[in-house]
Every structure is written in C-alpha cells, then in structure tokens.
C-alpha cells in the first residue's frame, strides 16, 4: 500500500501562499484556521528560503500517541486522520505536534477549544465518502476522487509535492542531483549557461 507524504522543495518555493489559499478554498476551512501555512526562514537576509508546512502524516504520529480519547486513525494510504465526533478539544495534539498542525477554532468564552482541525491530506474523515457531513467537518475528499491534495496540485512552481513517499522522494532526489545547491543556483551562469544570446562573460569579475 502507498505511504502518502508531502515534500516541500525549499529551493523552489516562492512564498506565494497558493497552497494555503487552495486549501482554504477547497475545504471551506473555518475562519481562523489555516491547515497549511508558509514559514519564511531568514526573511530578508541572505539565504532566505520559504517552506510550506502542514500535517506531515507522521509514521509515528505524536498526536495519535497523546490523544486522551484516541480519536486518531490511519488510513490504508498511511494518512493520519481524526474523528471530530470523539475529539474533546484538549489541545494535547497541539502540544505534541512538531509542525503546529492541529488547530482549534474557538468554541466559547475564555478561548475554549473546539474540535481540532488539521490537514486531512484531502482525504476527508470517518464519515461516508462525499457526504455533506464529511465535507462540513473535514472538507472535500479528493483522495476518494482519485486526486492528489489541492495544495500540491495548485503549487505554481511544483515546490510542494504530494504522493507516495518513494515516488516523490525520487523526484526530489533527481532535482537535487540536477541543480546542485547554494551558490550554484544563482547568477547568469546558472540561468543562461550554454546560451548563444547571452555572453557567459557578462558578469565576470563580480
């Protein structure tokens, strides 16, 4: 069976927030909840990179381990989902998660946490596939439609990859091997190497 994962290629991500928007739009995510977000590292400094983060559907999922009502489960595709009918809104998954994926819409006074909401890998929840209840609680079930998550499908630079772990890992490895990294990604030589129209010597001496 497949083991579905996300990879965000930080060398390609342009911080457009298209993935965040695609997710919010696709699932009609409640106000105040963002199942996916962009984090920009070294913002405005040399070596700035952006990376898209959401639930990483961990193999040893901390949320699953600490949930006091055991509301998490794993699908055949190894996607980590949860049952909002069981969730009590205690916040333990939020304490345990390394990625800050679990979020809680406020359900009452004093910041009372409602039912936890997180990325479903566009795989819905325990309700019947394509039912109105499933959409209301978890959003669209694209996996059952045979589609990949909306964020990765929407990504304009194909920085965000979703799919079976060996497949997307191979794509990423190929990219790394092809482009190199760091200084190699920058400048005329990289952009126009071998071009007839632009002199390779244009920026020499910089």
């Amino acid at each position: 069976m497949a083991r579905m994962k996300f990879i965000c290629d930080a060398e390609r991500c342009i911080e457009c927030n298209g993935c965040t928007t695609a997710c919010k739009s696709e699932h009609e995510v409640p106000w105040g909840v963002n199942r996916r977000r962009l984090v920009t590292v070294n913002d405005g400094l040399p070596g700035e990179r952006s990376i898209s983060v959401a639930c990483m559907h961990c193999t040893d999922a901390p949320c699953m381990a600490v949930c006091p009502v055991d509301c998490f489960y794993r699908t055949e595709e190894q996607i980590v989902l949860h049952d909002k009918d069981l969730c009590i809104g205690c916040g333990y998954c939020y304490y345990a998660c390394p990625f800050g994926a679990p979020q809680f819409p406020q359900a009452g006074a004093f910041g009372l946490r409602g039912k936890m909401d997180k990325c479903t890998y566009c795989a819905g929840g325990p309700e019947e596939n394509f039912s109105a209840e499933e959409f209301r609680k978890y959003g669209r079930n694209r996996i059952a439609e045979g589609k990949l998550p909306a964020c990765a499908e929407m990504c304009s630079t194909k920085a965000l990859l979703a799919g079976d772990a060996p497949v997307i890992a191979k794509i990423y490895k190929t990219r790394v091997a092809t482009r190199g990294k760091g200084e190699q990604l920058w400048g005329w030589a990289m952009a126009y190497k071998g071009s007839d129209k632009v002199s390779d010597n244009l920026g020499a001496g910089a």
Partner: protein
Amino acid sequence: MLHTYARRFAALILGAALALPFAAAAQSPAPPTTAPTGKVPDNPARGMQAEHSSATGSTAIPGWNNPPDWASVSERPQYASIPGRETNRLVQGAGREWRELHNGLITQAGGWLVVIVLAAITVFYLIKGTIKLKGAPTGRLIERFNAVERAAHWTMAICFVVLALTGIVMFFGKYIVLPWLGYAGFSWLTIVSKNLHNFVGPLFIFAIVVGFLIFVKDNFLHAIDWRWMAKFGGMFSSEEVPSGRFNGLEKLWFWGGLVLLGIAMAVTGLILDFPNWNQARDAMQLANVVHDIAAVLFICAGLGHIYMGTIGMQGAYRAMRDGYVDEEWAKEHHVLWYEEVKAGKRPEKIVGAQAQPAPGDD
C-alpha cells in the same frame, strides 16, 4: 530530557506568578514575535564544488544564496504571514519531550503511585482498623468547626473530588475506562469531564484561597508539631503525641497540600485553562507536566486525608459534618487544643449533650 524541564521550571513559576495580575491585560493577543535574527547563519556550503562557485560568468556573491542550516532554524521563530499563535515556528522539538514525559513516566509512575497509596491505606486499615475512642464519651460537646469553616471545607472538598475524578478520566481514562466503555461513550464522558474540570478549577482556586485565610491561624508550625511528625502522631504505636487544634499531619496537609500543591495546581491550571492568553506551547507543555505531577501527589495526599477523616478515625467525619466533637475525642486527639478550650482561651464553645446527637457513634 528531564533537565530541560527542570531548567524551565523556575522560569515558568516566576513568569506565571508575575503574569497573573496582568492576565486581563493579556487578553488582547500579542503580535507574534517575527523579529528576524539579524544574523546570517554560519553555514558551510555543503557538498559544493569549488569549480562551480567560480563558474565563468557567475554574478553570485559568495555566501548570499546558501540554503539555511535547517537543523538550527527549525527551533527559532521565523517569519510567517499567516496570523495565529506560533505560526512562525517551523518545527518545535519540545513536544517530543512532553510526549515522553506525559505518556511515559507520569502516566505509568503516577498511575502506580495512586494504586500503591490506595493499597497501603487498605493494608493500614486492615491492620489498624478504625481508631476508636479509648475512654467513654462524656456527652459534652466541643464545637470543632463552625459553619463558615465547614462551608469552606466542603466547597474545597467537593471541588477537589470533582477535579480529581474528571482529571483521572482525562489522564488515565484511555487505559482504564475506554476499553470497557467504548469510543463514543468514553468521548462523551471525557467531554463532560473536560468542561467540569475547566469550570470547577477556578472555583477550587477561590475555595482554597478562602480556606487558607480561614484555617491559617491554627496551622502555624510549632515545636510540638515536629515531635508529632517524628513519631507519626503515634499512628504506628499506641501512644498519641500531644497536638493543638491541628496535628502535624493536618498541618502538613495544609501547607504541603492546600498551599504548595494548591499554588502549583492553580498557576499551571490557569495557564492550561485559558488558551486565549496567547501563551506559547512550551509554557503549556511545562504547565501540563507540573499540573499532572502535582495532581498525582494531591490525589495521593487527598486519599490519606479522606481516609483519616472518614473510616480511619471515629468521630472525625462528624466533626466536619456537624461541627462538634466529644470532649473525650478532643482530649485524646488534640489535648493541647482541649486544654485551651477548657481554659476559655479559644473561641470554640462547649455545649451540652442535648445540642447535638452524640458524635463518635459511627
């Protein structure tokens, strides 16, 4: 793993204590700390070939496009345009420590500690039985707790029992209740428990503040209390060590339980109960660890207190229910207090037998 918690413990207690008066002001969410580090991370260009960096025609400025050292950036706050609490933290590693403590040591050691204390109390009861009056009741009653004291005690007691039971459901229920109640039933029970816990908690804090003010005057430690504690009040021997209105163990329960554990539970409980104060995850993780450990200790001590106040000692429960004890009970268990009452140095009154049904009968 534990030492990182130990280091943060002092900071949390101090910070929380200082922050409490400003809790109302903190209701408005603080802006996320997105301050850039202002420093280019020291980053050796991994796997970079020398001939590439000086490629013909390159306009690259050395050091300007090296990817960040992911291991070091992951813990620091970065920039995120998405509003919300800690959205600018790429990865937080403390959750792993919290998970290991919460699921491992505290659940297992804490759970067994409660079981062991229950077993020890049972064994103690089987060996020692109820501590009965040695002499015959005189029929003259002394007021041990007035109406205000009893109301304060029972408010604390009811809150404590509700908090302990709902806490046990939330903390150990996954292992001891879920298997026989099923997912749907247990989830319902836990939602009820969580809400009871969240609302009774602040009431308990109010109750222990009132309880402290009411009972503190008779709980100051004196030399006789250390003697009492050194001999365990004669619990394991037959002779009773003299004590005032409250004996050594009652004072230990007051200072160690109500005051020390009460403060620990209150501070950490408020941090956990009000996520709208915008406290960060590590504060809540640490508060949760302290809250769990203090709760287990509180429950164990509470079990001992409940035992001595009910089946452990004849007449003790009626003292808190009706407010009166027999003179003989006072003379045997709190002789110094009894003498002061007899000498008229205390506010407690001696009343005739007709005022109340004779305590100590059950």
